[in-house]
């Protein structure tokens, strides 16, 4: 059963593990630095559907079915699925799951959704509420652009701090037993809003939330950043990452070469024209499922802090001039 450790960290003492995972991405993501890491790369990002929203659902379905295959289970065996995405009312997820009769709890955490759903799945299994749980999330560049910014063919310019929504989906199946990656601890994020209003600089809006969650985690566990093989945030991008380093260094917590950001891992900023880096629920999901989990399985990484960050704005709140609340959820993963 889960036990509290310190003020806000939960230890998953029943030893829930990753039983299967899958990452599927679009063409641009498949051509990035993580080429070859994914279960499938779809060159046609319409997924042969009539709308971008349907395409995103199809992408999520691909990740879901592949992760379940890897775990060797069928959808009907799942006790609960935590699913989320960026679209209004989370329709990418709910529409993707129309074909499966799976108990579903929709989640919204913006780009932090992978960590949020994974934490929920881990808690469900750890508490005994579920024998098998899964976490899935997705984002699609075209459906997100349309909802949050402009139509795709509109001739606008992006600012240097803007991030590129990844066309990607990731799914993790959690259960007991086996030799998969262990889900050890979680720290649920708090809303942190430092008054950033620029929707084109979400990294800056989210960095304080990541700093808050990491600080609380290090306090609760009495550890330091250097104690981990990898601390991966997602997706602060170039601006947000440097701000996180600065914020933590002011508290005496130095992030060294073991610190990476999923938004900077998925794309090559020099050649792929993504400005400050990748973003979107699918970004950290694809990096987790395509790169980080396999690296832990192969023994290349032993102790990882996965900290997905979300900018909790809407198109309406941005137009109304509201500042952007950030959130960051942490999941510790070990061999």
């Amino acid at each position, binding site marked *: 059963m889960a036990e509290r450790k310190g003020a806000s960290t939960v230890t998953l003492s029943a030893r829930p593990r990753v039983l299967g995972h899958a990452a599927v991405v679009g063409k641009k993501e498949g051509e990035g630095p993580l080429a070859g890491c994914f279960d499938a790369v779809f060159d046609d990002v319409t997924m042969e559907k*009539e*709308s971008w929203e349907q395409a995103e659902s199809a992408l999520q379905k691909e990740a879901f079915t592949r992760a379940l295959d890897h775990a060797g289970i069928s959808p009907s065996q799942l006790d609960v699925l935590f699913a989320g995405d960026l679209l209004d009312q989370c329709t990418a997820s709910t529409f993707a799951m129309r074909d499966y009769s799976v108990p579903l709890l929709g989640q919204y955490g913006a780009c932090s959704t992978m960590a949020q759903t994974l934490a929920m799945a881990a808690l469900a299994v750890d508490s005994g509420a579920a024998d098998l749980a899964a976490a899935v999330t997705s984002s699609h560049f075209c459906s997100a652009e*349309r909802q949050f910014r*402009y*139509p*795709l*063919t*509109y*001739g*606008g*310019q*992006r*600012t*240097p*701090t803007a991030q590129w929504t990844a066309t990607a989906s990731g799914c993790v199946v959690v259960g007991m037993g086996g030799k998969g990656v262990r889900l050890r601890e979680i720290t649920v994020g708090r809303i*942190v809003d*430092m*008054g*950033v209003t620029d929707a084109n*600089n979400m990294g*800056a809006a989210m*960095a*304080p939330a990541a*700093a*808050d969650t990491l600080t609380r985690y290090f306090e609760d566990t009495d550890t330091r950043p250097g104690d981990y093989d990898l601390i991966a945030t997602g997706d602060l991008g*170039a*601006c947000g990452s*440097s*701000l996180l380093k*600065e*914020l933590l260094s*002011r*508290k005496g917590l130095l992030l060294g070469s073991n610190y990476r950001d999923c938004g900077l891992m998925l794309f090559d900023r020099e050649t792929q024209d993504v400005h400050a880096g990748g973003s979107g629920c699918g970004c950290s999901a694809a990096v987790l499922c395509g790169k980080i989990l396999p690296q832990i399985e192969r023994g290349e990484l032993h102790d990882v802090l996965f900290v997905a960050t979300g900018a909790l704005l809407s198109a309406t709140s941005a137009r109304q001039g509201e500042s952007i609340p950030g959130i960051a959820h942490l999941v510790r993963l070990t061999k």
Partner: protein
Amino acid sequence: MDITPQEYRKLAEKSAPRSPVLADCLKAFGVGGTICMLGQAIALAGQAGGLGEKDALFLASLTLVLLSVLLTALGAYDVIAKHAGAGTLVPITGFANAMTAPAIEYKTEGLVMGLGTKMFTIAGPVLVYGVLASVIYGLIQAALTLL
């Protein structure tokens, strides 16, 4: 957080890379100027072909709008605009792009509530405030004639 929001916003501004303003201006000038020269050339050609000045200017506008719509539909306009910025936004081609892009994008939501309504999401404010500005201009002109 042991940093005030004011301090943090300053820090965030400092760490944000700036847009290359000079290069952006030069590219906007080059592309915008080229579009205007093309318009002028079409107008002159129209006049040489026997059109009156008004009709020749109308021909130039129509041709540029058509070109912009075609390039938007082919997905080329936004690629040029990414570099040209205001150079493709300010001329009439920018307005045509702003109408065509949502029309293409929102047709999945139906011809009336999708295409018909959302066609004006970007161009709408231009129309509203353009008309308002011309009304104010008209009123000032009328007032001046009365004096």
